[in-house]
């Protein structure tokens, strides 16, 4: 169940910078990278940088955290619909819980996700915070 160092290294582009792919055949924006377009099923390996902007599709405040996340509970997880089309699952951060709502504009930030293993290696990744109204 513990995330592994090699795994974190493999996923650094996606987790730190929201790097996806763009399908050269149908233009579909793909995140996470799949190398095969889920829309037209053609090979799709063109790197594509997502803007990190999106809005809340749904959210929930989680009170019982799985192993590895206990110290952070309660925290709010959400489905974020990104501007370019893909949806991602992520935690919300820098929020006032009662002000979170479906449709709220958010933007990606890099934050600590958890500490792992006996040595407590820190794992970072994307979270989303409310976007200023003028953004």
């Amino acid at each position, binding site marked *: *169940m513990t*995330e592994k160092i090699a*795994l974190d290294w493999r*996923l650094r582009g996606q*987790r730190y910078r929201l790097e996806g792919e763009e399908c050269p055949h149908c233009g579909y924006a793909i995140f*996470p990278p799949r190398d095969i377009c*889920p829309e037209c099923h053609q090979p799709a390996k063109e790197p594509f940088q997502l803007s990190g902007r999106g809005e809340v*599709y*749904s*959210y*929930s*405040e*989680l*009170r*019982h*955290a*799985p*192993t*590895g*996340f*206990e110290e*952070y509970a309660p*925290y709010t*997880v*959400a*489905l974020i619909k990104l501007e370019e089309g*893909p*949806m*991602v*699952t*992520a*935690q919300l951060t820098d929020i006032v819980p009662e002000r979170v709502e*479906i449709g709220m504009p958010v933007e990606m930030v890099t934050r600590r*996700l*958890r500490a792992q293993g006996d040595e407590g290696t820190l*794992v970072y*990744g994307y979270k989303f915070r409310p976007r200023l109204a003028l953004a």
Partner: protein
Amino acid sequence: MRDVAIIGIGQIPVGEHWDTSIRHLALGAAMNALQDANVAQVDAMYVGNMLSGHISGQEHLGAVVADFLGMAGVEALKVEAACASGAAALRVGLMAVASGMSDIVMVVGVEKMTDTSGQDTTAALAMAADAEYEISQGVSFVALNALLMRRYMHEYGWAREDFANFAVNAHANAVHNPHAMFPKAITAAAYNRAAIIADPVGLLDASPVCDGAAAVILAPLDVARSLSPAPVRVRASAIATDPIAMHDRPDPLALHAARLSSQRAYAAADIQAGDVDFFELHDAFTIMSALSLEAAGFAERGQGVRLALDGEIARDGRIPITTLGGLKARGHPVGATGIYQVVEAVLQLRGLAGAAQIPNARLGMTQNIGGSGATIITHILEAL
């Protein structure tokens, strides 16, 4: 392709079996099924299970169960499809008999979930979702269902309270099931008062962590009548998948794999949704009941909750569901659930469901869901 029938069923009570190892849970259900079918030996056995490696440190469960049943030698494999592992194993058993590769086949669903802490079990269950893009974000299985439920409430204007009757109905039915974990009625008021575990999902929206095992014996239809006084014909087996991560589905509330799986099952059985007398759906969470009713064609989009509110899911309603308690009140030992559903459907079709009996039940449907909907397996069973 040979037609296949169920000639025996077995189950053990769902609950916290502190004193029983996973192998002996499976053994209990298997022995009951062999006895019910009145057969001493099978040609093959398929074991549906998700978590034996994580929780019991035991993989290779097919061989373990065959061995401890005293049947070392026979074909034995484990089949896994997260919470749909039970129905997945049944599907493989059906292929074995349909192809002619085996005649008498046992399918066992088994799960031991109470040997680890609640947090560890929560983390283990999350392996049914996308490890790299869901679990890694700290989302639990409950939270995934909460995301669905909130969006559903938002899109269709329902309140939390409107889901109460899914839980109330399940518990009311479980009262008549001696194998249920919670054979106790609950009220809508109790549902409304229950603690919230991941907003808007409360304690009484969710099925419990528990241990259990159930088994069925399969045979070719043409010999089933000579082997069993009340064989049940498998009219359809259908499976469909959807992206593993909820966020990768174009419309998460559509429960697309359930729609596909149901349609494939109706086509194979040559029936309509309306022909089904009862529906053992996968009520791991109340939101799943609503979405399943819609995807299987019993309600319009966004109107599944209406069936609960109107009492149409009760024993005497338009489409009775969770007739012996469902995942909510019978319990949800994940890899065993798909087989419990089938065992209960067979009881209904044999007319042996006691006070929970659906009058004149002739066609029953079971639907087992893996993960948040990535694997959905439907079976249609018919009384002969």
